[in-house]
């Protein structure tokens, strides 16, 4: 088997058995990057020299028996909103275009301790605000399944890098679907863990009550191995929770007998693409055949999740992004007249359009006179949405539905109409509001050969049940195939109708 055809855990096993080395694996990844990166643009920063040194050091530790984990020696890509000491970390924004952190994110440190070899930092929507990776200040990433299409976002660089074989696995972050949706568009696995399961220390904040770091991988087994490695209680993140039971790989069993799966009827209404609908429903049939009890139900409040989310996320973003002031780090405008003018010009020149749009909206909903009508109202609706999920999980173990209403849209077709773009988040966003874990995995392809994502949502801290269900489905589905096999062969897409 060629090294690049291996999953992360298969590669780690092969290195451990002496069949290959961390250095050989890294060199193959760099060959792929050299061949494909100009086309796909998955990365903002590539640290070839540093990665080679890491690979050599990790290889020695594997040979001496010091390192033996399920990911030891495997090259990984990190989304560019996670700090890595000494490595450029930009959030794909001009305002952080020259920022070199003095410390690393806890999730990254956990990976490094497990022998990860960090290739570099992946492209994203600026400050994770977007659904296409087109709001990046450093140019768009292209979908390896069809380079006329977006990879999704905001973790689009991470998803595309996996689909293109430019890394073996990656970390992403998910505030309203930013791991799950690009995973769906790129035909890979992505998981948003329960809020608090993975430390947010060193993750550059967007909407702090919603942000969560999670695994992006080639299959469910890798996903479990990554989650097991990055989940940890961290005193440096006061919302981090302490969980004892993080042996996620033990959940990889083919067993859904008696599992109660609920399908929200309100996730299958207007706007859902027919191909997506039939692929997702087919996946539910497969789980039923495997012994799960599958029922339809009304989740309710689905249409209220997007306005609630954009109010809360924009409010938190406007507060979180106050720190970018041109004083301590990052960009500072060249010509200014006094302190306040410097702040305003720095921020206006440093932030892109979508970021400014959300900062303005957030500042407004938090402003005196409108706080109760907008921000407080949204926090109350959030409580209602949480309650709707609590009710659902009193009847069901897992909620099953689509990740996104369509497959990957064409480049350049989304940004002109923000509300239309936000509507694409309808199935992912409520999960963040309710703090729940959810996984996205490939369940078919549409008429144009683009991947379709299946979303499984669990109650808080039921990651094992989610992984077991996803694993059972994945085994029944069989191999999904890789984007790189289709490169150059995929036919040009016909013009897509509006959503």
């Amino acid at each position, binding site marked *: 088997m060629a090294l690049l055809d291996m999953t992360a855990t298969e590669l780690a096993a092969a290195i451990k058995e002496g069949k290959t080395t961390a250095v050989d694996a890294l060199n193959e990844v760099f060959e792929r990057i050299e061949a494909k990166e100009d086309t796909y643009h998955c990365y903002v920063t590539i640290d070839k020299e540093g990665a080679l040194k890491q690979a050599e050091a990790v290889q020695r530790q594997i040979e001496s028996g010091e390192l033996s984990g399920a990911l030891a020696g495997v090259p990984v890509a990190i989304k560019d909103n996670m700090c890595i000491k000494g490595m450029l970390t930009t959030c794909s924004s001009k305002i952080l275009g020259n*920022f070199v952190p003095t410390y690393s994110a806890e999730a990254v440190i956990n990976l490094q301790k497990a022998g990860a070899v960090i290739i570099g930092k992946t492209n994203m929507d600026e400050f994770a605000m977007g659904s296409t990776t087109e709001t990046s200040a450093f140019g768009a990433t292209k979908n390896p399944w069809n380079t006329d299409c977006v990879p999704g976002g905001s973790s689009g660089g991470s998803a595309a890098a996996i689909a293109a074989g430019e890394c073996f696995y990656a970390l992403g972050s998910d505030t309203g679907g930013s791991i799950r949706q690009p995973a769906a568009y790129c035909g890979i696995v992505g998981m948003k863990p329960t809020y608090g399961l993975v430390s947010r220390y060193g993750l550059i904040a967007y909407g702090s009550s919603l942000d969560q770091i999670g695994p992006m991988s080639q299959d469910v087994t890798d996903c479990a191995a990554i989650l097991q490695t990055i989940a940890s209680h961290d005193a440096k993140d006061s919302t981090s929770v302490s969980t004892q039971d993080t042996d996620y790989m033990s959940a990889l069993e083919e067993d859904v007998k008696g599992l109660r799966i609920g399908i929200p009827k309100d996730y299958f209404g207007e706007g859902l693409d027919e191909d997506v609908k039939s692929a997702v429903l087919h996946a539910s049939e497969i789980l039923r055949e495997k012994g799960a009890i599958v029922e339809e139900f009304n989740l309710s409040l689905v*249409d209220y999740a997007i306005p609630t989310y954009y109010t809360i996320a924009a409010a938190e973003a406007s507060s979180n992004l106050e720190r970018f002031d041109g004083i301590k780090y990052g*960009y500072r405008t060249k010509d*200014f007249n006094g302190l306040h003018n410097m702040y305003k010009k720095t921020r206006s020149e440093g932030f892109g359009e979508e970021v400014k749009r959300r900062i303005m909206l957030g500042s*407004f909903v938090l402003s005196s006179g409108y706080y109760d009508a*907008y921000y407080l109202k949204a926090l109350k609706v*959030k409580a*209602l949405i*949480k309650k709707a999920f609590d009710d659902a999980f009193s009847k069901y173990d897992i909620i099953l539905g689509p990740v996104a209403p369509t497959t990957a849209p064409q480049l350049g077709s989304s940004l002109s109409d923000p*509300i239309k773009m936000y509507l694409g988040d309808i199935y992912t966003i409520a999960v963040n509001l309710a703090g729940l874990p959810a996984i996205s995995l490939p369940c078919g392809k549409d008429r144009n050969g683009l991947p379709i994502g299946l979303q499984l949502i669990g109650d808080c801290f039921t990651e094992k049940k989610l992984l077991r269900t996803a694993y059972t489905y994945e085994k029944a589905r069989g191999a999904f195939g890789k984007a790189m096999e289709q490169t150059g062969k995929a036919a040009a897409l016909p013009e897509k109708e509006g959503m």
Partner: protein
Amino acid sequence: MANIITDETIDYVSILAKLELSPEEKEQAKRDMGRMLDYIDKLGELDTENVEAMSHVFPVNNVFREDVVSNSDIREELLSNAPAQKDGMFMVPRTFD
């Protein structure tokens, strides 16, 4: 409700947001924010009279720790990211006349 977004609102919000918008950007912001708020007004359909606002999904308490210094002196490293520095300090524009 979009009619609440006047030129004055945009000017006021840009002061809060510390953003300087060009005339075109202001017009765009007025349109975008108006549309977004019209959309958010949908939440008004729900009766939340007796609902408590939820800022955090789990019952969390204050997290306390001893007030001890745990970080080392990395002044030079931190300053190396600053747009301007002088004598081991961040350099800022004149604030008082």
